[in-house]
């Protein structure tokens, strides 16, 4: 990756105040998204992946707040922008789509009206221009009857159609970065693949960068160029998708990959990851993953590993990253 990344997150820290103390959901996160790249941010519940997305666009609400770090978008630090300027970034430069589209669309507004409004907010455009653009977008996201969807209310659309409509909304002002938070989790399998492929196509057609947040490793395998794996608020492994899947270098990644019941192979017993995700208010000392790790030893219990480069472009947060491949057998 020689060109400068579109998005560079450095040292992002987002903390939440709870009655029991401060939960440091993110505490020094680094992440890059290059131009025209699809980066998968993978993690289970409590990993902090959604919070990362919200922090980037500064939509974190109390009791949470971004306390430190830089979010460099095309060189500008978004965290230091006044809110007025940030509003111009949201929707125009960076857009987001969410898990349940019908929950995020105004139930009493027709899709077409929302599209028009977004377009006209960020661009100076007449109603006719806005409508033309709206229909063009709805067609571009693969909706077979754009006119009908234009006039429809969200509840009249099926899950898949609503998600396509939401993607159209997100693309209305030609953003450079699309953040997709679990966009296919609520969808049926046959629709999921349609949406995933649509995102890949849009990336190619529009030179769009996508930050795809999901817990589904197979979706990541399907379209992502690079993958960042998160656990308990930290990135534990980051690299090219092929690398991560073929030679993972962190025990958690190995565990996740093997815990999937897959069609291709049938094992007698699924390799599960013992234990469960730690409480953010009572994190283990040393490496956050050590209580569940098959490689853990005394060093892991006391010393938290940093993110180490193993190969150009492949980092892992594990003292024994080199041994992961042999011991994983």
């Amino acid at each position, binding site marked *: 990756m020689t060109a400068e990344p579109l998005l560079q997150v450095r040292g992002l820290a987002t903390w939440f105040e709870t009655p029991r103390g401060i939960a440091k959901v993110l505490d020094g996160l680094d992440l890059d998204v290059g131009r025209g790249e699809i980066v998968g941010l993978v993690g289970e519940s409590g990993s902090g992946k959604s919070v990362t997305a919200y922090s980037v666009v500064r939509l974190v609400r109390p009791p949470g707040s971004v306390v430190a770090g830089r979010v460099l978008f095309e060189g500008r630090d978004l965290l230091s922008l006044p809110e007025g300027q940030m509003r111009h970034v949201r929707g125009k430069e960076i857009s987001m789509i969410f898990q349940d589209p019908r929950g995020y669309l105004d139930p009493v507004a027709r899709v077409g009206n929302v599209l028009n409004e977004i377009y006209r907010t960020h661009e100076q455009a007449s109603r006719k221009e806005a409508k033309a653009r709206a229909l063009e977008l709805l067609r571009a996201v693969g909706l077979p009857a754009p006119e009908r969807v234009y006039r429809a209310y969200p509840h009249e659309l099926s*899950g898949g159609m609503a998600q396509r409509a939401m993607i159209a909304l997100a693309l209305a002002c030609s953003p450079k970065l699309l953040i997709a938070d679990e966009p296919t989790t609520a969808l049926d399998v046959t629709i999921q*693949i*349609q949406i995933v492929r649509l995102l890949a196509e849009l990336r190619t057609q529009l030179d769009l960068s996508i930050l795809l947040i999901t817990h589904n490793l*197979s979706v990541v*395998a399907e379209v992502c160029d690079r993958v960042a794996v998160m656990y308990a608020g930290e990135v534990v492994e980051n690299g090219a998708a092929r690398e991560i899947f073929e030679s993972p270098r962190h025990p958690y990644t190995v565990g996740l990959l093997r815990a999937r*019941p897959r*069609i291709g192979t049938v094992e007698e017993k699924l390799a599960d990851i013992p234990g469960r995700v730690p409480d953010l208010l009572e994190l283990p000392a040393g490496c956050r993953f050590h209580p569940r790790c098959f490689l853990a030893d005394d060093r892991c219990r006391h010393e938290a590993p940093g993110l180490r480069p193993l190969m150009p472009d492949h980092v892992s947060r594990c003292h024994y990253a080199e041994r992961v491949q042999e011991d994983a057998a």
Partner: protein
Amino acid sequence: MSDAILQVDDLVKEYRVRVGGRRAVLHAVDGVSFEIARGETVALVGESGSGKSTTALCILRLEEPTRGRVRFDGEEVTGRSAASLRPLRRRVQIVFQDPTESLNPRRSVGDTLREPIEWHHLAEGAAARARVGELLELVGLQPGHARRYPHQLSGGQRQRVCIARALATNPSLVLLDEPTSALDVSVQAQILNLLNELQREIDLTYLFITHDLGVVRHLADRVLVMYAGQIVEAAPTATLFERPLHPYTRALLDSVPVDSPSERRLRAVPKGEPYSPLDPAPGCRFAGRCPWAAEECEAPVELAPAADGHLVRCTGWFSRRVPEPRREAIAS
């Protein structure tokens, strides 16, 4: 036939609805028939609108079937009063999808587990409490967990409690409605392994309702694929994955994302949306999305044997319009 623990005959469930001001009938389950043998694990697979969950609820009469017959271990389930079902309910149990919603937030784990034991008069007092401890250990928890409340447990632990509750009355048949969909991947694996172990230890029969083909491949002996309220294909698991006949089954299998980037392939992405059968046309309901659709698909079509133990509901298959499935479309 005599070893069938569950027999479902022509099960139908219709809902009267209003759509856009017009009255219509939603055929959620439209003539489903199948049998489950003792000790088998059968998977009922489908997407939204397929009717798989409704089928399960009708089998237990948690929803009242409109028509059709269900027999459990030879005894009639349908066609009798709801009150007389109580002894049967001891022997057929269900685990629901969302473990958080399935547990009464005001009752401790111990209370929740003791309830079925005491109400079916299986044990009382100290004996009941001991049994609760046994059940907890059976599902991989500890007896001390009985004092906990649902909100003090993780998602995986809650689902274990739900499984323990289902096993509390020593059922022979357990229905599982998407038992792992609401859980994280690593926890899913734990629960699936647990279900496998339990079946070996206790001699249970499972009816799994799911949309996750990986889970099906891993656990099921036989698969029933449902679309728009009907079974469109039925086969032993390995057969279904190696030789899917019905165009919908093929589309379904083809839609599963790859396991790893190196397996990325060009695929014919199925078009259209899953069908919700509101006043459906008499013919094949998949025709609108099927690459091999033709005029003959407008006629009603029945489930018929294509090979030994392999049934399919497709006119095009039997008239040779639909070709043999290509091997490389499915990972082997």
